[in-house]
Every structure is written in C-alpha cells, then in structure tokens.
C-alpha cells in the first residue's frame, strides 16, 4: 500500500539530484545549448536557408538539433554517474530500480525541454518566424519524452559497454526514428498552417510510441541494471 508514494518519491529524489548537480555545474546544459546553436548555424549555411524554403524545413532542423543535443545530454548523464562511481551508490539504494529510470527520464526531459525553450525563441528571432505555439510545445514535449524513454534505457546499456559514447547514437537513432518522423511531421504540418485533422495521425503515432516504449523501457531497465 505504501509502495507507490515511496516509488515516486524515490524517482523525484533521483531527478532532483540530477537537476541539482546540473544546476551547480551547468556542464551538460551549457554544452548542449552551445552545440544546438552551432547545429542551427551549420544548417543555415549547409542548406542556404531562403525565406520560402525555411517555413517547410524549420521543423526538421529543430528536431535534428534537439536529437543531437539530446544524445549529448544522455551520454553525459550516464557517463558522469559511471565515472564518479555514483552509479554503484544509486544501485545500492533500497528502492525499486525502475524509480531510477523514471528519475533519470524526468531530469533528462526537463533539461532538454529547457534547451528547447531557449532554442525556439532564438530560432524564431533568427528566421523571423513565431515558433512559440502551444501545439508545437506539445509535440516537443511528447517527442522528447519518446526519444528519451528509449534513450535512457539504451544509454544505461551503452555506458556499461566499451565504446560507450560512440555507441549510443548508433543504437538510439534507428530505434527512435518513428518518434522522430511523427514529431517532425506533426510540427511541420502545424507550422505550415494546415488544419488539425492533418496533424492528428502524427499525434496518435507519437502518443503510441511514447506509451509503448516508456512501458517497455521501464520493464527492461531492471534487466539492464542487474549486477
């Protein structure tokens, strides 16, 4: 009976720990943000973004940027735990290990959402396009959740392998592709001002991905963390 509140309290504690260490060092956040801005600038020159073409591919650029920054953040979150020996401590804690998963997922999600919160206005400013739309924010929230739901599980595996930071993107990108496609299409449909009916299938797909993979990763996390 007492188990549920304890579980979520443990998850929140893990998330709080992550966010606090991040707040004190700002290591991952600043690196991810600068990296994300650089990616946008690279796209600007690589694709020669003209005003007409821009509206259509804004969503794509934003999502590629978020994915790259997210992979960077995931690596950081787990490598620092492993290198400083914190992971053993966390695993020894007398709580359900799934709580660790949800804690990590939540802190990662919040950090990436903060990155997006900075990125959207800057992108809008650079390209004179209003991106602060409630619909877009919803898609980003859902897309980032799906991406990190798988990412948190795979990063926990990758960090225990030899070529860890090299391995994660290779493992992560093909599996999360459906979420990425759905998020990009939902966002670009919204940004091109098409009616909500056109957005709906993508939203459903995104929700299905989030649901399926959060549950699967939650169940598999215990197995990955066995020692």
């Amino acid at each position, binding site marked *: 009976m007492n188990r549920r509140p304890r579980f979520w309290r443990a998850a929140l504690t893990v998330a709080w720990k992550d966010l606090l260490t991040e707040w004190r060092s700002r290591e991952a956040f600043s690196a991810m943000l600068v990296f994300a801005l650089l990616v946008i600038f690279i796209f600007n020159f690589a694709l020669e973004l003209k005003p007409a073409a821009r509206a259509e591919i804004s969503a794509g650029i934003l999502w590629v940027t978020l994915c790259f920054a997210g992979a960077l953040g995931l690596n950081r979150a787990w490598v620092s735990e492993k290198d400083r020996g914190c992971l053993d401590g966390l695993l020894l804690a007398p709580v359900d290990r799934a709580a660790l998963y949800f804690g990590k997922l939540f802190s990662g999600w919040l950090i990436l959402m903060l990155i997006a919160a900075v990125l959207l206005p800057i992108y809008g400013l650079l390209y004179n396009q209003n991106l602060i739309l409630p619909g877009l924010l919803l898609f980003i929230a859902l897309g980032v959740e799906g991406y990190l739901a798988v990412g948190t599980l795979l990063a926990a595996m990758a960090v225990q392998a030899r070529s860890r930071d090299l391995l994660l993107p*290779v493992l992560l990108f093909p*599996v999360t592709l459906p979420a990425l496609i759905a998020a990009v299409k939902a966002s670009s449909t919204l940004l091109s001002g098409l009616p909500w009916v056109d957005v709906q299938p993508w939203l459903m797909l995104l929700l299905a991905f989030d649901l399926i993979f959060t549950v699967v990763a939650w169940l598999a996390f215990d197995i990955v963390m066995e020692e």
Partner: protein
Amino acid sequence: MEQSEIHPGQRTQRILDIAAALAVLGALAVVIFYAPLEATMGAVQKIFYFHLSAAWAGMLSFMIAAIAGGIYLARRQTRWDQLSLSAVEVGLVLMLMAIVGGSIWARQAWNTWWTWDPRLTTVTIMELVYLAYFLLRQGVDDPERRARFGAVYAVVGFLSVPLMYLSIHLYRTIHPLLLGSSASDGMQLAPRMTQTLLISLAAFSVLLAALLYRRVRLARLADTLDALRQQMD
C-alpha cells in the same frame, strides 16, 4: 562417440544442408523453367520470387531473434541467446539479399535503383538496427551481460518495426509519390506465378532453417572453445 561429442548435431546439419540445397535449386529451376515470362518486364520480373522469399525469411529470422531474446531474458539459458544472435546474423544476410535483389528489380520496373517506399525503407532501417546490435555486443566483454544487452536490444528494436512501417507509410501517403509505391499491391499474379512464389517461399524457409541450425552450432562451438580456453588459463 567421441566424434559426436565434439560435433553434436552434425547429422541433422547434413540433412538440413542437403534439403536446403535441393529446395533452393529446385525453386530456381521452377523460377527459370516453369514460371511464365511477364509481359512487360520479361525475365527481370523473375527476381521477384527470390526477392520476396528472402525478405520473408529475413523477417521471420528477425522475429525469431526477438522471441528468443525474450525467452532468454525470462529463463537465462545460454542457448536462447545463441539462437537470438544467430537469427539476427542470418536475418541480416537474407534481408540484404532481398534489398539488393529488389533494387535490381526496381531499376527495371520503376527505372530507379532506389525508392523511398515504406517497405524498402523500413527494411533498410531494420538492417541498421541489427548492425547496431552487433556493435553493442562487440562492446561488452562479459558474456552474461553481452547476452542480456543483446536480448534487450533485439526486443526493443523489433518492437519499433511496426511503428516504423506505419510512420513511413503515413509519410508517403500524405505526400503522394511519383513512383507507384503500391505497385506490387495491385499486381495480379497468374496461377503459375503464385505457385512459383509459394515454392520459393518454402525453399527459403528450409534455407533459413539450415542456416540458423549451422549458425547456432557455430555459436555453441565458439562458447565451448571459450570455456576450454578459460580452463587452460
């Protein structure tokens, strides 16, 4: 006695090998001599039989890999991991055959080597998923952990396949494609073509069984060798 202990399952192996060789050669003969020549495409159309069969066997193999991975996670018996790993490897090869064959077919049918057709794209991304699977296994030294991680990734990777197909399919139907992506949906098969197709499918299923059996035996021997090496040290 000594012989069969070192090479367990050699008899079954031999039977399967011969059956697979006969089945594939037989199917090839049927494709060449029995199947009718397609009116517009001619002989190139005959690739289709082996292309579809290889894709079917590859898909089946990936499914076996995911199921065996799931069973491994539940029971933790090494043989399920051996089966899962073998099925991924065999599936990769068969799928590659399907992609290359399909590409040659597409060149003739649609005048392009590659189209971003949902099935083709999904299958190619699957290949990437399972290549990543090998990279993951390579990076883990502890055999127990390698098996565990491999099984988790085989299951997660396979689960993303239906969603992948759905998303790419939606992507394509909303943006109509110039090249008919559903060309084979509307394809009418003559009875002789259907028969040939079924024979090829059966032949490739036997081939899959033979390859899988061989690969599992190899995995088992490799594990035995590892164990012996550790005894020596």
